[in-house]
């Protein structure tokens, strides 16, 4: 039982070891990579099923007592996100394998992808601040390798920017960890949340501010999101899809957990800042997306805009809405990146073209929040939470940005629908199938939302805010 939360981290690591040990000259590890993704998906789905059934599982590594141990905490929310991320990443691995060139595969794409998967799971499941930081850094380092894999000048330029900005954010994060340890005497998020109310003075505010800046940079908040579009357009689309499903989402979930534990509840200053900066992000991202012609850059700005909505929801302190938004965006944005990866390479088969074009359209509608997609459910829950918090301006900003995103995406769809077939290798059936499956998942999220949302509201509110 206590072994289950460890498996989503250990299984991909073991897979990476297996790949490293079996590497011969020219090995691409296509099959092993996708099997690794499927194994991770199986393990994390099992974890989610167990947690949803029996409640939170806590694993203390090395059997040391809390708060001294490194511990993993699988709540329904975190386990659910790990499971969903795992399936989306597996889909991204399929797309990347099919669309990527051989040299990149030979330089170890699949083993690095497994490390990203392990680190992201660790960051989502970890229950203490420093452990979270370490997994986060591991994820950053591995995704830096993915951004620069292939070493084209554009990739190296954007990768350097990405690395520099992320390292700066990490310094802030590390300072917050150190101060939190000095102030509260431990790094256990749940313990800190308990101690929080009995402390006054500058400490909690300073720690909260440092953590906020760090994670806001990593989840692409408005004045600090310039690194994102380059990092998502320079590498091949398969890698961009993988990163879109992982890095900013993990940062947002970490911000939710750290915010609820570290930010002083009384002042609410940091939450207010999150609301306004998030609103600015969501509008600025959508406006930038309209102004840009290149489809992939446009998607990258829309991703930043979507993250803005999540930040507003974190600022409104409604945990269930945050989890819902993260889950929906993970699938919908990945679906858009998948479709773009397949664009113009589908060949003449009408079914494949329909799957790719239709997949793009459904995911675009989901990003804009049109029923019957998962986006509608998430945005609806968001508006509800915003009105309950009596913050109509934030709600208005998000709705306006949804409208702008819809415009940007439909324009993109129109221009891509007429795009002529590119020369180069045609894709098989796998990528269109993945596009169709992602679109179907988005639709299912919208149609079957009722029970999921009510279940989420019951469990998440208590679990994450603890």
């Amino acid at each position, binding site marked *: 039982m206590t072994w289950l939360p460890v498996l989503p981290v250990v299984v991909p690591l073991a897979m*990476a*070891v297996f790949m490293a040990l079996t590497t011969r000259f020219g090995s691409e590890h296509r099959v092993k990579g996708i099997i690794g993704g499927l194994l991770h998906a199986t393990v994390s789905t099992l974890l989610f099923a167990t947690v949803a059934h029996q409640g939170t599982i806590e694993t203390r590594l090395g059997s040391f007592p809390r708060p001294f141990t490194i511990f993993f905490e699988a709540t329904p929310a975190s386990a659910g996100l790990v499971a969903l991320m795992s399936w989306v990443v597996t889909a991204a691995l399929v797309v990347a394998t099919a669309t990527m060139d051989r040299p990149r595969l030979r330089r170890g794409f699949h083993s690095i992808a497994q490390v990203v998967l392990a680190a992201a799971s660790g960051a989502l499941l970890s229950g203490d601040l420093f452990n979270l930081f370490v997994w986060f850094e591991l994820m950053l380092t591995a995704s830096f390798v993915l951004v620069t894999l292939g070493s084209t000048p554009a990739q190296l330029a954007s990768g350097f920017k990405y690395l520099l900005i992320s390292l700066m954010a990490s310094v802030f994060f590390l300072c917050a960890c150190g101060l939190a340890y000095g102030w509260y005497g431990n790094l256990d998020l749940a313990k800190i949340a308990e101690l929080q109310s009995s402390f006054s003075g500058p400490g909690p505010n300073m720690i909260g501010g440092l953590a906020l800046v760090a994670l806001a940079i990593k989840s692409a908040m408005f004045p600090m999101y310039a690194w994102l579009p380059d990092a998502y357009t320079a590498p091949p689309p398969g890698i961009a899809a993988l990163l879109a499903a992982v890095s900013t989402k993990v940062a947002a979930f970490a911000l939710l957990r750290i915010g609820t534990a570290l930010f002083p509840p009384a002042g609410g200053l940091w939450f207010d800042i999150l609301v306004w900066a998030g609103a600015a992000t969501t509008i600025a991202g959508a406006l930038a997306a309209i102004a840009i012609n290149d489809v992939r850059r446009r998607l990258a700005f829309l991703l930043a805009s979507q993250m803005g909505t999540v930040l507003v929801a974190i600022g409104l302190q409604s945990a269930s809405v945050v989890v819902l938004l993260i889950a929906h965006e993970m699938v919908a944005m990945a679906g858009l990146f998948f479709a773009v990866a397949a664009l113009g390479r589908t060949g003449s088969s009408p079914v494949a073209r329909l799957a790719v074009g239709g997949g793009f359209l459904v995911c675009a509608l989901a990003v804009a929040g049109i029923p019957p997609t998962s986006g509608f459910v998430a945005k609806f829950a968001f508006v509800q939470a915003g009105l309950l918090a009596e913050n109509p301006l934030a709600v208005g900003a998000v709705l306006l940005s949804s409208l702008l995103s819809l415009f940007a995406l439909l324009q993109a769809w129109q221009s891509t629908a007429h795009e002529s077939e590119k020369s180069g290798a045609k894709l098989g059936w796998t990528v269109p199938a993945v596009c169709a499956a992602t679109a179907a998942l988005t639709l299912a999220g919208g149609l079957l939302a009722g029970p999921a949302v009510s279940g989420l509201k019951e469990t998440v509110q208590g679990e994450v805010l603890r």
Partner: protein
Amino acid sequence: MIPSLVLRTWAKLLVPLTFLFSLWILYRGHNSPGGGFAGGILAATGVALYGLAYSVAEARKLLPAQPLALIGAGLGFSVLSGFVAYFYNRTFLTGIWNADLKIGTPLLFDIGVYLLVFGVLMQFALTFERRIGEEGE
């Protein structure tokens, strides 16, 4: 590569010395300063020096395996050491000790770290040294 008789003679002497010293650092690491990380770095410095004195190809001959395989094996040992606890019904990474020999899974974990650090540094050092060699010639 640097064609210096002094450096070459010393490098030959220093490779086994640093290696033995690194093993000692690795072993004492559980209770005293040292451990897999420091040991791995020490072992790598010896081979890196040998690579400078002779050539990258000669230094590669000293390695038991390709750097990538060392990295994989190291990570593998560390992950494996966590799983030993499973057979004693304990949680992942719980230290399982043999009281008589004072040897336990933390040592296995440290050996993994040692190999991993050694492999990573060898990969770095040999790549850079090859570049230095190319420019020198």
